[in-house]
C-alpha cells in the first residue's frame, strides 16, 4: 500500500514526530497538491483497472465455457466418429466448410464410368466430414447403381445407400436436395430414397416376371 508508479504516497511518506503529530503542507499550495492529486488519481485508476480486468476475465470465461458446452452438445447429438468429422462439423456450423473440388471432380468422373468403388473413395476424400449434401447424394447414388439388378437388388449396398441419402437429406437446407445432373434420372434426394426403399422392400411385385424389363435409373 502507498507505493505505485509515482513512488510512495506523498502524505504517508511524511515522518511522524515523537508526539505522534506530523507537519503536512497546505494542500492548496504548489507542487505538493499536484503530486498528491496525481498519486491518488493513479491509485484509483489501478483499482478500477483491476476490477475491469476481472470482469473481462469472467466474461471471456463465460463465453468460452458456453461455446465449449455447445460443442459438447453438438458432439453428443451428431456422434462424429473421426477427428475430420468433428472439425468439419464445427466448420460447417459456422459456414466455413468446403469440399475438395478436385476430389469431387474425380469422383464424378469415376461415377459416370460406373467405377463406383473408386467414385466413393474420391467422394469420401472430397467430403471427409460428411457435411456436404450433394457429395453424400452422389455416394448414395453410387450404392444404388452398384446394387441395382434386373432380378434382385443387393440389400447390403441398398442399405448403405439409404443411410447416405438420409444423411444427404439431413445435411441439405430444409431437407430439400435437388441435383441438376443430366446423367442422373433421379434428381432429388426424395426420389432416390424412395427407389432405395422400394429395392429393400419385399412384396408381391418382386415376383413379377416383367421386372426384368425395367431399367436402372
Amino acid at each position, binding site marked *: 500500500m502507498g507505493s505505485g508508479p509515482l513512488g510512495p504516497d506523498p502524505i504517508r511518506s511524511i515522518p511522524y514526530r515523537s508526539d505522534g503529530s506530523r507537519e503536512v503542507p497546505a494542500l492548496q499550495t504548489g507542487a505538493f497538491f499536484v503530486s498528491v492529486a496525481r498519486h491518488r488519481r493513479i491509485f484509483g485508476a489501478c483499482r478500477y483497472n483491476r476490477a475491469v480486468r476481472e*470482469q473481462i*476475465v*469472467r466474461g471471456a470465461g*463465460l463465453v*468460452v*465455457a458456453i461455446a465449449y458446452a455447445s460443442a459438447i452438445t453438438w*458432439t*453428443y447429438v451428431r456422434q462424429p466418429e473421426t477427428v475430420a468429422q468433428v472439425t468439419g462439423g464445427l466448420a460447417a456450423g459456422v459456414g466455413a466448410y468446403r469440399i475438395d473440388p478436385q476430389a469431387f471432380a474425380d469422383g464424378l468422373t469415376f461415377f459416370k464410368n460406373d467405377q463406383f468403388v473408386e467414385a466413393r473413395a474420391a467422394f469420401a476424400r472430397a467430403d471427409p466430414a460428411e457435411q456436404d449434401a450433394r457429395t453424400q447424394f452422389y455416394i448414395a447414388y453410387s450404392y444404388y447403381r452398384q446394387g441395382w439388378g434386373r432380378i434382385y437388388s443387393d440389400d447390403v449396398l441398398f442399405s448403405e445407400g439409404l443411410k447416405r441419402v438420409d444423411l444427404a437429406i439431413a445435411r441439405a437446407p430444409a431437407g430439400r436436395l435437388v441435383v441438376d445432373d443430366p446423367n442422373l434420372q433421379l434428381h432429388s434426394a426424395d426420389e432416390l430414397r424412395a427407389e432405395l426403399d422400394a429395392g429393400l422392400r419385399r412384396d408381391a411385385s418382386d415376383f413379377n416376371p416383367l421386372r426384368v424389363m425395367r431399367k436402372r435409373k
Partner: protein
Amino acid sequence: MSAVREAFILPLLFLTIALFGGLDPGAPAPWNPPSLFSLVLAVMVMAALVRSGTLAPDRLMHGSRPIVANANGLVVLLSLFAASAQVLNMLTPRSGLPSLIVGVVLFVLLLNTLVMSPDRPRLLRSFAVVTGSAFVLKFVILASLADPEGGRTKRVLLALFDVATLGTISQAPLHSAAGYWAFVLVLLFLAAVALLPPASYRSTAALPPYGERALTRTE
C-alpha cells in the same frame, strides 16, 4: 478463489471430463450420454460435496456477487454435475450383473457418505477410493475377462467361466485405450473437485483432547 480459476480452469476441466467421459472408442455411436441412474448418483455427489464443505455454493452464487460472477458460478455447478454424472457412468460396467452390483454399491457408498457427513479431506479420500475401486473393477478385472486376445488355455478358461456364470459377468471388449483414458479422466476429476471453493471454517479456541484442533463450519 481467483476469477481465472472460477471462469476458466474449473469449467474447462469439468467440461472436458463431461465430454470425454462418454467416449466409447470404436463403437458405432461412440459418444454415450450419462444414464438416468448416473444422474441420480451425480446429485448425491453434489450433496455430499456441499455437506462436507468441499464445495461452498454461496461462494459461487450469491446475491452480493455481480451477475457475471454468478453466471461463472452457475457454469461451474452445472459442469460439475455433468462431469460427476459422466465419471460415474464411465466407471459403471456396461451390462450384466457387474453393472447392477456396481450401481448398487456406488449408491450405498454415496448414501453412506451423505449420512456420515465427513469433512473435506475425508470426503476427497473417500472419493478417491470409490472411483479407484470402480476403475480397477471395470478396466482391469472385467476388461481382462473380456479380452479377446490370449492363448487357447485362457480362452477355454474364460469360456468355462462364462458358462459357469451363465454369461452374466462377461462384458463387451473395451478399446485398448479406454482404460488409460478413464484413468486420466478420474485423476482430472479428483483434482478438479479438490480445486472447488471450500466452505469457510473457524478454529475453536479451546483445544480438544489428543492435541487436535476441532473444526467447525461457520456457514
